């Protein structure tokens, strides 16, 4: 049956130093299928896809495309062979427009006047619309939401004539609504004869979108199977290696405390006069986890920033713990007991080149426990750091090791250690489990529940609807900069939330 495969990878081995990332992996695709590559973080999914797209070279093993043995030495080779990859971290130039990003690297035309650019923009726009991936082609990337940026990346591969489109953890940055939208476009690509490979560790997606499924574990290919012949439970077993039962943490029904945070009628303008928050109202009570669900780019980032004093507001009122907050101040937010787990931990949460101690000191170095008369208490800070590292089970080579050497899960644990040790009244956690594996995710969930059980509050802003539904006592849905729906955990169901997220209110047919 070898002939039916349009793409084959045989006995691929990739070694990084002493780490065997891929151990004799076989992988193949049929034309016009959606092939899911399932595995936990670190199973080697990204590595093998990077070899297919020319980012890495295999230590040994062969790749065949349409039965012909090929050598993929660089991303350029891969493009020529019709392989396009959309990375988890997008490779886009922030200041260029979407269309400029897509034609970047194109060699065909030397002169690129406005007319040429316009025709290209139109061409790109029509490709995008054809596949249902519309985005504003003339806007610079930094103004686009993450979901839109991903579309730019996908259209880039399509524009370059990719036959094999690799999506690396595509939904990790998307909301369920956006993910569903993406899966619809996958159907369209399939209909056009494209082969789509998506790597993921979310079972639901696999079952929803894939035709065939390959499961990887610890650098090995475990099994490839048709979707019709399997179910979630089997896949979970294959992926984790033993019977796996998802951790259920029951939310405890408890009487509501007093109001901790109250936001009234808040307007926030983002860059270029875009209204990011639009008359937003929100209450958080003591001792509850409030989940904020919504499609990316509906004001979640701005909400987190404004609560942490990182951006100011035009209109409205914020009161925390009974005191009105007059103006945006990060110090003010820190001192009043608001913790922040930012969206992108390495970008704004941690300093990669500094050691564990320095990273733990971020928010507490001004307190008397950590410094006195302007001098850091070096010795006691080190002991304190050591203690936190042990308490939160952060695996690190040492407390002076640069944190960029830590794995994603341990970085996040470190961040949580810092934010929780401050005994916050309110924790604003944005996508706290993004990119973490099952174990680390469960750890983060337990930490959030622990906070709640101590009577603290959590504002969980996440695009993972499962997570929001599982963790939150109360769920708010944000759409277009305001809260459009609210429900308790008991009332919540995916469909209702999805309606709100799409901007469709109860008893209304049309989008608002």
């Amino acid at each position, binding site marked *: 049956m070898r002939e039916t495969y349009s793409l084959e990878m045989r006995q691929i081995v990739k070694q*990084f*130093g002493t*780490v065997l*990332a891929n151990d004799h992996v076989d992988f193949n695709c049929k034309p016009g299928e959606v092939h899911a590559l399932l595995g936990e*973080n*670190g199973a080697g*999914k*990204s*590595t093998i896809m*990077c070899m297919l797209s*020319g*980012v*890495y*070279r295999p*230590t*040994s093993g062969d790749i065949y495309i349409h039965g012909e043995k090929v050598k993929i*030495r*660089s*991303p*350029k*080779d891969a493009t020529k062979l019709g392989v396009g990859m959309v990375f*988890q*971290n997008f490779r886009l130039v922030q200041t260029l427009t979407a269309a400029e990003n897509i034609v970047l690297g194109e060699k065909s035309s030397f002169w690129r006047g406005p007319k040429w650019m316009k025709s290209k923009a139109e061409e790109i726009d029509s490709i995008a619309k054809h596949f249902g991936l519309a985005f504003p082609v003339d806007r610079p990337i930094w103004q686009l939401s993450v979901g839109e940026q991903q579309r730019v990346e996908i259209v880039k591969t399509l524009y370059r004539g990719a036959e094999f489109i690799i999506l690396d953890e595509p939904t990790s940055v998307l909301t369920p609504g956006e993910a569903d939208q993406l899966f619809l476009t996958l159907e369209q690509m399939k209909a056009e004869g494209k082969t789509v490979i998506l790597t993921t560790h979310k079972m639901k997606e696999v079952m929803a979108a894939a035709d065939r499924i390959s499961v990887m574990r610890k650098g090995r290919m475990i099994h490839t199977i048709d979707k019709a012949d399997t179910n979630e439970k089997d896949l979970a077993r294959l992926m984790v290696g033993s019977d796996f039962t998802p951790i259920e943490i029951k939310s405890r029904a408890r009487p509501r405390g007093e109001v901790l945070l109250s936001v009234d009628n808040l307007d926030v303008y983002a860059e270029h006069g875009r209204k990011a928050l639009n008359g937003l109202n929100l209450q958080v009570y003591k001792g509850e986890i409030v989940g904020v669900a919504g499609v990316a780019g509906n004001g979640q980032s701005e909400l987190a920033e404004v609560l*942490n*004093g*990182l951006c100011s507001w035009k209109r409205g009122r914020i009161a925390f713990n009974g005191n009105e907050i007059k103006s945006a*101040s*990060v*110090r003010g*937010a*820190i001192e009043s007991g608001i913790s*922040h787990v*930012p969206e992108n931990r390495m*970008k*704004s*949460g*941690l*300093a*990669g*080149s*500094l050691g564990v101690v*320095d990273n733990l*000191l*971020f*928010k507490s*170095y*001004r307190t008397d426990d950590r*410094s006195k008369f*302007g*001098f*850091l208490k*070096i010795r006691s800070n080190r002991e304190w750091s050591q203690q936190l590292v042990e308490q939160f089970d952060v695996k690190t080579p040492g407390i002076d090791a640069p944190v*960029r*050497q830590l794995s*994603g899960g341990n970085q996040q644990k470190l961040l949580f250690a810092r934010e929780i040790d401050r005994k916050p009244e309110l924790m604003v956690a944005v996508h706290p489990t993004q*990119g973490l594996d099952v174990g680390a995710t469960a750890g983060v969930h337990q930490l959030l529940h622990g906070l709640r059980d101590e009577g603290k509050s959590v504002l969980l802003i996440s695009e993972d609807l499962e997570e929001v539904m599982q963790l939150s006592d109360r769920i708010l849905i944000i759409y277009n900069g305001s809260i459009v729906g609210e429900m308790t955990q008991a009332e919540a169901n995916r469909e209702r939330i999805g309606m709100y997220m799409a901007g469709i209110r109860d008893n209304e047919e049309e989008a608002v």
Partner: protein
Amino acid sequence: MKEQPASGTLQLDPSASSVRRRLGFRFEIDPARKESPWWMTIVSVFLALVTCAIFIAANGKSPLVVYEKMFRGAFMTEFGITETLVKAIPLLLCGLGVAIAYRIAVWNIGAEGQFAAGAIGATAVTIYFPDLPMYATIPLMVVFAIVTGGVWGALTALPKMYFQVNELITSLMLNYVALLLLDYLVFGPWKDPKGFNFPGTPMFGAAQSLPVLGDTRLHLGLVFALVIVVLYWFTVKYTRWGYELRLIGANQDAARNAGINIKRHILIVMIASGAVAGIAGMSEVSGVTHRLMYGISPGYGYTAIIVAWIAKLNPFGLVVSSVLFGGLIVGGYSVQTLGLPSSISSMLQGAILFFLIAGNMVSKFRLRRNG
């Protein structure tokens, strides 16, 4: 990048693939590597010596003889050693000044101007308060130098803070402003009336000159410099403010999230940077030239940038690198007796910088056999 192991490699410039195929090996960039290894500095200095040897040999001199002469001239005699240290003082002070700015990624290349501003400030004391006793004059000169140097640094910081003006440009341009101001003063209002039209102020009196060691020219400025070395090291390592600087240097976004006012730090750091370079200017006029004069700095402020980079902004490394470069200048003088120009030392300085920067780049690469 989450799933990429730390030792992962990214390929360099795919368009060169055909070349690589022919050569049978390829270069890859190692993204995990941010700094060159420590021995790269030594290798760079060595390669610079080898390269310059070619030019020396082309002039018909034996490179070994010339280097030996330079080394002896700079480090083997009492005169040489003290002179080397005299040159090292302004280099070390200016180097510390720029290093503190580079720590938070503010690219101050205006040490030359801040040096001149400090020299002018210190000299102003001698012009306007000529009769104060020494114990008042010297501290006052230092204070004036700190203020004028600091103001010169602030002039770079303020446009950056409020209008996002690139500090490379402002600090460089302010160098010319300061040097022209200095020229104006020594050719005009401050010119020594009894100086036979020499462009310089009247010679300083004993009360306005820094004490020297014995009958050498080695002056108290060395103590200033060493005190600042220790202060710099201590501040960065042990103080809250130093921690903030480290944080800003490592990740500005994260620093903002930690509630640090970055603009304010840019201002403070630029003032400190300018003030330290200003002290260098003060110690030069008060300790070496004993007057403000035309061409007071042979480019100390620029050489200091190299000195700071060679030391990788480490304060103790700066001591070593400034002495090395001081030695180069002094060694350059001593080869003049062999019939070579003293600009040999400039050539060596340039070559060292060249190899150092190249080494920094090269150490990110790894050579791989094509497989």
